[in-house]
């Protein structure tokens, strides 16, 4: 029973996995993230903050949930939205790995250029008798 639910969740996650950069590109969504980073909030509380409709906020939360940046948590009768810190860190992790790849390439190139220039110097040196 548990295995089946887990499998369904995995498939669901894969299908609805959303473009995370697009999700955080929206300024209202970024503001929502900033707020709930401090404490989990309900859609109503968020709507008050933005002077916007509850529906608009729910749409934003839906998008953020789909890319797993926020998670709904039931507390009593209310649903609070929590920030998933791990997901934010994941973006930075990929960027960091990407940066390291470039760093390594450039270190290689430094050495290659040094070698090229030394070779050129040696070739143009006047021959000693």
């Amino acid at each position, binding site marked *: 029973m548990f295995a089946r639910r887990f499998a369904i969740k995995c498939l669901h996650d894969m299908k609805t*996995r959303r*473009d*995370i*950069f*697009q999700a*955080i*590109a929206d300024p209202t969504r970024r503001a929502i993230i900033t707020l709930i980073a401090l404490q989990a909030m309900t859609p109503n509380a968020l709507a008050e903050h933005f002077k916007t409709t509850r529906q608009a906020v729910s749409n934003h939360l839906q998008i953020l949930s789909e890319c797993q940046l926020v998670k709904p948590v039931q507390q009593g009768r209310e649903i609070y939205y929590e920030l998933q810190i791990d997901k934010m860190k994941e*973006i930075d992790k*990929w*960027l960091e*790995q*990407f*940066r*390291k*790849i*470039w*760093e*390594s*390439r*450039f*270190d*290689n*190139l*430094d*050495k*290659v*250029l*040094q070698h*090229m*220039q030394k070779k*050129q110097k040696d070739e143009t040196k006047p021959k000693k008798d």
Partner: protein
Amino acid sequence: MNQTLLFDFSVNKETKTINVKREFAAGTGPVWEAWTNPEILDQWWAPKPYKAETRKMDFRKGGYWLYAMTCPGSTEFKDQLSRMDYEEIEPKKRFSGFTAFCDETGKVTPGSARSLWSNVFTENNGHTTVAISLKFDKLEDLETMVKMGFKEGFTMALENLDQYLETGV
């Protein structure tokens, strides 16, 4: 890493662009040569411990560079190659192109993202700064580039190497 040479790495998450700037202690002549001559590219393009192997290079507008990444003692990525299709080229000044993963024949891997690159070369006092701009479509593309080309083992290898260099162990 040489601390006195400029190295800038910034990401614009909204425009999905990565910008890299790196200064090299050489003029645009040799630097351009290093970026466009396959024999030299093979010496530095792959981050250690990998090595790039050019299969085909046609450096002109509409041409492309086809290369493999190899790792000594490993058959990892044996059939996984990369290609860079050249768009605009201004000799010793700039070039741009699309990059994607492909097979031995150069056929783009289905589902492989194409990222647009542009490289600009500027000389100043005998040093050359290369400004690289890489535009991709989705976070997943970035993940794929990092994952497919360089699995987590690679990052661990880098960390091991760092540690080795620091402690000599």
